[in-house]
């Protein structure tokens, strides 16, 4: 299935490989991601305002938080065998957290297939960013690190603020709440902006993501084949766990896909920023490259159709 948004992602990668000077200024990337976060949050809130808050929602949100907290634990102990503790903790947090862009691409994917999904998954996304960061740090500071962490100017308050109030979490949750209390008339007047443009902006944004990911490909060699494998296998494992959870929770197909994608995705916005402040020794190039240049493309190209097929099969 030739989705133009995904093709533009490859066009971006190709531009880097062909050494084209095609480039998107960083402030444009920021504009597009602000728009997408606002739109997805707001639409999620509006949808949520039409559904009743029940145990299904509560159970899903709780499972989401748990997944975000548990994934870093198992990945940390796996990673410690191959890389230093600081890198292990940072990568673990990366894979426990989520990628808003992957989620947004999945929403676009469902829209094209006209599979309905619920707004509260947006809340699940926002809630999954921070627990992984906190667990990653706890593992690093109390389980693994020795004299490394003595006498540094680490402050939980600063890290927690960074983890919970970072720009993207803040904007998603804020937009969700605003969407929740907005009347239908107001929401309709914003629809040409939040709805009609969504796919188009996502397309241009994926071109940009392709350029960004493409520029990181060179750093893959440095990471080594082991970690690259890790960046493909862990999403599959997490997705499998996600599928199992959606079965237990009894989610519909669209919601199940979004939940699975959240489990499978890895962060490259919130986590790098938080790690820089709290584990500056960790090699940022490593964890950013794995999530951005391996896991992200894997999820949007192979993952989305694969997870959907599996979900269709287990739901049948």
């Amino acid at each position, binding site marked *: 299935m030739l989705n133009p948004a995904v093709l533009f992602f490859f066009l971006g990668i190709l531009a880097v490989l062909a050494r084209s000077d095609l480039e998107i200024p*960083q402030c444009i*990337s*920021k504009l597009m*991601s602000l728009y997408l976060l606002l739109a997805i949050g707001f639409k999620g809130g509006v949808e949520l305002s039409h559904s009743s808050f029940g145990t299904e929602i509560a159970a899903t949100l709780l499972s989401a938080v748990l997944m975000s907290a548990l994934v870093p634990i198992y990945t940390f102990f796996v990673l410690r065998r191959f890389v230093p503790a600081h890198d292990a903790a940072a990568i673990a947090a990366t894979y426990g957290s989520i990628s808003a862009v992957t989620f947004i691409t999945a929403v676009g994917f469902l829209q094209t297939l006209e599979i309905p999904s619920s707004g509260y998954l947006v809340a699940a996304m926002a809630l999954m960013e921070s627990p992984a960061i906190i667990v990653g740090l706890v593992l690093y500071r109390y389980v693994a690190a020795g004299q490394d962490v003595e006498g*540094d*100017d680490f402050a939980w308050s600063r890290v927690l603020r960074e983890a919970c109030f970072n*720009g*993207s979490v803040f904007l998603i949750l804020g937009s969700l709440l605003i969407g929740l209390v907005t009347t239908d008339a107001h929401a309709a007047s914003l629809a040409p902006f939040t709805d009609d443009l969504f796919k188009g902006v996502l397309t241009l944004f994926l071109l940009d993501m392709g*350029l*960004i990911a493409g*520029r990181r490909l060179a750093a893959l060699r440095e990471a080594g084949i082991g970690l690259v494998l890790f960046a493909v296998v862990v999403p599959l494992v997490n997705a499998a766990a996600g599928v199992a959870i959606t079965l237990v929770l009894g989610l519909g197909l669209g919601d199940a896909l979004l939940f699975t994608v959240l489990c499978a995705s890895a962060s*490259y*916005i919130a986590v*790098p*920023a938080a790690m*820089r*402040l709290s584990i*500056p020794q960790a*090699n*940022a*190039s490593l964890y*950013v490259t794995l999530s951005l240049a391996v896991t992200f493309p894997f999820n949007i190209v192979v993952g989305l159709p694969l997870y959907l097929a599996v979900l269709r099969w287990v739901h049948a």
Partner: protein
Amino acid sequence: MKPVKRIEIIIDSLDIRMVLQELEDIGISSYSVIRDVIGSGDRGARSGDLLNDAMKNSYILIACDEEQAEKITEALRPKLKRYGGMCLVSDAQWVQH
């Protein structure tokens, strides 16, 4: 014209708030900042192309007297050690006005 020290700091954009706070704490309230700087150093390339300010540097320029310069470099040394970056000190003449 008055001889001054000219301090240049290059540091992770994410750390800029912290450094400016540090400057305020030691009583420095005059400085200039250029926010978008990319580069390469011991911790690899910083291409400034992510969706936030991770992987980007900022540049701070401070003109001050020798004593303040001393204070600033002492305060920054541990930060630079922990978070990376660079700090240069040179001489200049301040055009008085």
